[in-house]
């Protein structure tokens, strides 16, 4: 069987490529098409006629704008919290812990991913219960009380869920850092803090951005955690969820908002080289 390397490469990637085109790009396209169709408001049946009414509805109604802003606030908060926790964790794992214990530490970071998403979120639900929850029991002696269900609970829950996705890329970035570069910084007179902020952070910045792509996009699209921990708090995902059986084209239009935000986000971080770090 004499075939050119190009043909072999093509046959190798054809299956994943077909998957990507049909399942992924195809469904995005279907989403877009659906968002420009009409609906019979009485029967909830989709009418395949062009309209921009769905987008006009989304963008003219203040309520949806507010949901978008709330979703962004949550996604940004979750990302920042994950960055703040993950950087020292990753630094410890990659540079301070003995090389022998690193695989164990990575396994420990990954263990939460082995448990079901729902189990973890329901666990947080019992902790956040007002009056009877664990957090209330913990904080009440200090004169505080559990924040209860709402935005704060959602942010904490999502930060917990997505933290491993932030730790791993930063860990990989910090582990690649040669010791000699850190030595060189100290050699040139920089104290450890200066070395960390002047050398370690800038060099691992693309890895941090890579992690943020995960935490940001996963938070943007989530609606189950929001249902369980959010109380009356809603995000874009919930709006989509509530509308998709009643008004599919409108749900599609709302669902395009996080897609557009992610495209803008990816475009703006492209220059940092983060996409090479994924």
């Amino acid at each position, binding site marked *: 069987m004499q075939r050119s390397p190009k043909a072999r490469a093509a046959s190798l990637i054809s299956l994943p490529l077909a998957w990507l085109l049909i399942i992924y790009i195809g469904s995005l396209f279907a989403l877009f098409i659906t968002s420009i169709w009409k609906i019979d408001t009485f029967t909830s049946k989709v009418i395949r006629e062009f309209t921009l009414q769905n987008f006009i509805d989304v963008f003219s109604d203040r309520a949806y704008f507010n949901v978008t802003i709330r979703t962004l606030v949550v996604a940004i908060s979750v990302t920042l919290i994950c960055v703040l926790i993950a950087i020292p964790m990753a630094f410890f794992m990659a540079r301070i812990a003995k090389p022998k214990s690193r695989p164990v530490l990575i396994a420990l970071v990954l263990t939460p991913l082995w448990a079901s998403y729902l189990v973890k979120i329901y666990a947080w639900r019992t902790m956040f219960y007002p009056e009877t929850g664990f957090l209330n029991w913990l904080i009440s002696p200090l004169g505080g009380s559990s924040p209860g269900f709402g935005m704060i609970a959602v942010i904490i829950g999502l930060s917990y869920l997505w933290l491993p996705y932030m730790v791993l890329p930063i860990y990989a970035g910090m582990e690649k850092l040669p010791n000699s*570069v850190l*030595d*060189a*910084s*100290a*050699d*040139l007179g920089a*104290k450890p803090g200066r070395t960390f902020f002047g*050398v370690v952070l800038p*060099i691992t910045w693309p890895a941090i951005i890579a992690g943020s792509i995960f935490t940001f996009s996963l938070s943007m699209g989530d609606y189950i955690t929001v249902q369980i921990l959010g109380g009356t708090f809603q995000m874009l995902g919930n709006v989509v969820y509530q509308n998709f059986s009643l008004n599919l084209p409108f749900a599609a239009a709302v669902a395009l908002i996080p897609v557009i935000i992610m495209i803008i986000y990816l475009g703006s971080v492209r220059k940092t080289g983060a996409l090479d770090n994924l």
Partner: protein
Amino acid sequence: MALIEIRNLAKAFGTVKAVDGVDLDINSGEFITLLGPSGSGKTTVLRMIAGFEDPDSGTIKLSGQDITHLPPYDRDVNTVFQDYALFPHMDVLANIEYGMRVKKVPKEERREKALKALEQVRLSGYENRKPSQLSGGQRQRVALARALVNRPSVLLLDEPLGALDLKLRQQMQIELKELQREVGITFIFVTHDQEEALTMSDRIAVFDKGRIQQLDKPAAIYEKPRNEFVAGFVGVSNLISGAAAEKLLGKKGTFTVRPEKIRIEGKGAAGVIREVEYLGPATRFLVELDAGVRLVVLQQNSEQSAVDVESLRGRKIALSWDKESEYQVS
């Protein structure tokens, strides 16, 4: 008083004694080379002077001040690393200015000194390149400028030429030496390349098994090696010992004769040429003497036509040398 005084320095990694009792005085303005095979402890000594390794025992003094346990950032020394260790996210100028920026040197002065240092290493015009856009030799020079611009009392060089190709290495050897004379800073240079050590150094400390085997001027190290290790590591050893020594030299002990001091003549110690290596300006012969030793002989290709030296393989010849070329190593 010596600029650097090292006393009884020791460091072990686990059960391995990397450095095992080193005493070394280094004078101001000197170019001293720590020479030895890998694992001989030379780099560990350098790293302890820089402050990257903490000695188990012993002291290091710099200008009379005990710096044994000071962190690297409190020492008036700078290092040129084997892998250059340039900061990949900064351009050349920012790399060179880093030390001065940390020490809060005013911007104007910083810029001026950095540009001058860049000129010194002949890289003017490259200030806005990123390290990834430079060749190995250029990175080397940036690393040198970054260290020298701080005018440390000692510059530590950890096999800085190891990654360069031969031509560039030889050129950098000359440049480094010139630069050292120009700036007058003490250089401590680590290498495993004996030729490099011989051409560049004022003094050489030959390391093996965590100890200094010999500390002397290059010529003395080469001509008068103190023991078998030094004789073998610096140049070709040509050791004659035991029965062969008694037979050939009429003396007991271990002796060395450098290859270039041996003549191939009709008279003297009889033997057979086993190997011939044509080197261009010279030819190297491996001669097996009837007395039971193998000696390497180096001959300039100045006299007869050297084109047919290959044909000498297998020929019976005799070797001779002057009595004063025999040197007892132990």
